[in-house]
């Protein structure tokens, strides 16, 4: 089917409401009788709470209630959880401290949650929050992951002695040591992966509501996975039984991982609504987002690469210290372990890998998944270290990659993953052509004569997406299986509603999912409605993250459509008095093979509901089918990003001249949307490489980059035009051949940019973000 089917750049169905101001985000809701919540937060990075006096606040105009950690504890609510168990080398379980939604006797980072003030108006709540007197006894704090492991560092949770949550390993240590012993060349490289603040443009928000008559709670919230929020709030926090809690995630203004997690504020709003018997609304101010949204990355890594004389990789040894922040966020433990160590083989045939990761508590905001989640960190280690090796061995960076590419599939890496398919030379070759690699030397000469330093950098990345096969992730410690569900509901008139457990917060599911239905059922795309984000409408689902909604979410829809078609064929056979095996379905029409008998899809759907003479022992009325799809493997999107840039040695300013991305995402449903995803990912990757940095002041533990005035978000004039291309190998692990495209840019771009910068400066050791000051300082040292 052309026009609106698979592979077409269909304009987005959801756009009409967004371009006219008719979107409905959480903060846009005003519930009858709603009160406003404002959080009292810790001004200290680490302190004991000696007392909280809320008398003055309670007496202030409009104040409804002031609730603190002891009130939460009195109601016997559970703490927030980390849903992924990681074991240390010695087999012991990770050492997780308690994570109450409101602190009881201790605060552990600046912005930690102390109390909520609820008032008639937001201004009254804010004013009264100033009147809550909290007597703190400040304690020494530590914000750096390496320093937190030093002896004598402040102890943050009693459960994790020395602040070590886990020391995890993966791979064969002895075999890797043997590979290093036989190596002709060993490259050693230390690198940082800077702390990032996700900064979706819509700040987090929540409205809790409670119906006394029924005991029903509703939570409107900015979530990427409302069902998981409901499960955690009912089963673990034990706010209310699952069937008494509805979670609604309406239009959500970007997530990038930061809206996966079950946070204190959302939990407290739902609980507080029951306490004050009226809706309680909270919307983060941006400064609160900086303080209390889960941050991303923050690794220190030492890597060693063993190579033979020809530049073939023999082994990789990696030790990483991962800063996890002050509490373990929902998926925090999985990010620097199973989403990181498992990707350290990159696109390369590396026979031996051994990785150790120390997960560390610090007095900083919790660190969890942010676009790419572990895979950008892995790509950065592999791609930077390989470039360091190429420089040392005087090999062309494209050539050393070609020598090491995996070329036969399936390929079992030494770090769990089994790559199902790919064509890495193809994406490299296409990217080399797009950037005109042959012409680079001339361009470099031209730059030099203009007083500029020009560099080119490669990132041939791989990621594991389509998260995830339930049995596999279960064996690795995930608390839940990561399948997805769908229900395809055909109305009597032939229009179709799809209920999906995936959640769209910018990805365009209302369009791409409808394209699949349109393609398969021959239904006009305007007759397809995608319903998501409300636990009252949709059966259980796992939500959207890890580039999973195409590979997993759409596969579930596809499977449900299979069932719809199978049943519709039965009905059509009955209606046309033919054998079911003779019924064919194509382009929205049922035909009897070898005859001119034909029924359109709406004729069959109408009969499904209004027919009177079904043989009910064979066919039940109705046309509605559900499916749960559990993938058989991760998917492995891969590709090549190349960055070409120019540095002004006078100022240290870096200008990206050209950014090329060639990605293999498997089957593309909507190329326009896929390109948009790549653009956005690259922008975040460039932001990490050159601009963004979450910095805590070492002594005080205050977040120095706590607003858009201090934290450099990429703006339109910071970014180049991106040249995007595609190659395609169809993923064999799901029925649609999809791999996923949401994270590639953020995964690939930092290494490409930093390798280009290293090429320009002739220096490998450059920290991210490479701000003009950083670059200028390095140039002063090297000149």
């Amino acid at each position, binding site marked *: 089917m052309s026009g609106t089917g698979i592979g077409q750049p269909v304009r987005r169905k959801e756009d009409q409401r967004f371009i006219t101001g008719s979107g409905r985000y959480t903060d846009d809701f005003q519930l009858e009788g709603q009160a406003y919540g404002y959080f009292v937060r810790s001004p200290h990075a680490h302190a004991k709470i000696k007392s909280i006096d809320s008398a003055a606040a309670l007496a202030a105009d409009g104040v409804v209630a002031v609730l603190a950690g002891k009130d939460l504890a009195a109601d016997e609510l559970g703490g927030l959880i980390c849903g992924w168990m990681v074991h240390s080398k010695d087999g012991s379980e990770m050492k997780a401290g308690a994570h109450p939604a409101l602190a009881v006797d201790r605060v552990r980072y600046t912005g930690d949650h102390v109390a909520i003030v609820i008032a008639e108006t937001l201004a009254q709540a804010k004013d009264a929050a100033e009147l809550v007197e909290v007597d703190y006894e400040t304690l020494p704090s530590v914000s750096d992951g390496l320093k937190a492991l030093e002896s004598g560092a402040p102890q943050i949770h009693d459960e994790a002695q020395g602040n070590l949550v886990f020391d995890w390993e993966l791979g064969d240590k002895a075999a890797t040591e043997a590979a290093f012993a036989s190596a002709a060349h060993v490259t050693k490289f230390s690198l940082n992966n800077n702390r990032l603040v996700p900064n979706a443009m819509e700040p987090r928000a929540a409205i809790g509501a409670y119906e006394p008559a029924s005991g029903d709670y509703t939570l409107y919230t900015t979530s990427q996975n409302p069902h998981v929020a409901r499960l955690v709030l009912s089963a673990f926090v034990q706010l209310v039984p699952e069937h008494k809690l509805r979670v609604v995630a309406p*239009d959500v*203004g970007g997530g990038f991982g930061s809206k996966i997690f079950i946070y204190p504020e959302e939990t407290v709003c739902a609980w507080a609504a029951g306490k004050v018997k009226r809706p309680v609304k909270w919307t983060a101010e*941006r400064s609160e987002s900086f303080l209390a949204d889960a941050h991303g990355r923050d690794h220190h890594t030492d890597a060693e690469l063993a190579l033979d004389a020809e530049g073939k990789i023999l082994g990789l040894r990696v030790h990483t210290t991962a800063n996890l922040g002050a509490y373990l966020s929902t998926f925090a433990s999985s990010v620097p372990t199973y989403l990181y160590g498992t990707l350290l083989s990159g696109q390369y045939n590396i026979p031996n890998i051994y990785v150790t990761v120390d997960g560390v508590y610090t007095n900083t905001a919790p660190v969890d998944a942010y676009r790419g989640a572990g895979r950008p960190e892995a790509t950065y280690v592999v791609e930077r270290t390989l470039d360091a090796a190429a420089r040392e061995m005087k090999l062309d960076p494209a050539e050393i990659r070609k020598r090491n590419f995996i070329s036969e599939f399936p390929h079992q890496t030494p770090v769990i993953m089994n790559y199902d398919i790919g064509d890495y030379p193809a994406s490299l070759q296409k990217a080399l052509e797009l950037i005109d690699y042959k012409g680079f030397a001339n361009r470099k000469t031209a730059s030099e004569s203009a007083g500029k330093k020009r560099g080119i950098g490669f990132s041939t990345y791989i990621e594991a997406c389509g998260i995830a096969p339930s049995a596999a992730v279960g064996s690795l410690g995930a608390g839940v299986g990561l399948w997805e569900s769908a229900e395809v509901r055909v109305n009597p008139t032939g229009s179709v509603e799809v209920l999906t457990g995936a959640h769209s*917060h*910018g990805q365009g599911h209302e369009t791409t999912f409808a394209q699949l239905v349109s393609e398969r059922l021959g239904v006009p795309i305007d007759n397809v409605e995608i319903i998501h984000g409300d636990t009252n409408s949709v059966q259980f689902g796992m939500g959207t993250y890890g580039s999973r909604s195409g590979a997993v979410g759409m596969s579930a829809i596809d499977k449900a459509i299979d069932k719809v078609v199978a049943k519709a064929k039965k009905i059509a056979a009955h209606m046309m008095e033919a054998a079911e095996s003779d019924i064919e379905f194509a382009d929205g029409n049922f035909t009897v093979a070898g005859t001119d008998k034909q029924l359109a899809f709406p004729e069959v759907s109408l009969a499904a509901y209004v027919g009177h003479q079904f043989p009910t022992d064979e066919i039940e009325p109705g046309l509605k089918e559900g499916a749960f799809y559990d993938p058989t493997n991760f998917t492995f999107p891969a590709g090549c990003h190349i960055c070409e840039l120019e540095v002004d040695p006078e100022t240290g300013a870096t200008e990206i001249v050209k950014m090329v991305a060639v990605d293999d995402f498997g089957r593309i449903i909507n190329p326009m949307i896929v390109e948009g995803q790549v653009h*956005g990912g690259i*922008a975040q990757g460039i932001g990490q490489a050159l601009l963004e940095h979450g910095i805590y002041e070492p002594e005080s533990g205050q977040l120095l980059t706590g*607003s858009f005035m201090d934290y450099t*978000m990429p703006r339109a004039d910071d970014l180049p035009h991106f040249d995007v291309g595609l190659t395609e190998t169809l993923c064999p692990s799901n029925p649609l051949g999809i791999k996923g495209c949401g994270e590639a840019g953020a995964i690939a771009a930092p290494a490409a940019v930093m390798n280009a910068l290293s090429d320009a400066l002739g220096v490998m050791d450059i920290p991210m973000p490479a701000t003009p000051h950083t670059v200028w300082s390095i140039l002063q040292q090297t000149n």
Partner: protein
Amino acid sequence: MTTVSMTVNGKAVSEDVEDRTLLVHYIRDHLRLTGTHVGCDTSQCGACVVHVDGRAVKSCTMLAAQAEGADIKTIEGLADGDTLHPVQAAFKEHHGLQCGFCTPGMIMCAVDMIRRIPNLDEKTIREELEGNLCRCTGYQNIVKAIKAASEEMRA
């Protein structure tokens, strides 16, 4: 409390508001025009851009009282009935939005940009977008949409 009166999307409005009420909060919370968004607290993101007497203004940078007597246009008032403004149509055509949160501010900013500057090129558009943050699109398709709308409106 202060009484403020202004015209919003062609309609006269008047209401008592607390003195410290920002224009953006008046528009969102009092008038219930929630297409105008709040994305930061430092006047950096531009999600709240509206037109005040025909010029693009971040509505978090002024008090409602300062808009006394002004003619305000928000994203809800941009289309002509069911006919989209060319900038709105271009954002849809060129995929200039993903999550949609920055979009109203981007569109209101772009309409003013096109009004002020003839023959917008890519570099100028990127510079003019300095005051508007988008986390989803990498700006490429926003730039493309504004350029296309500009060319269409000049034609």
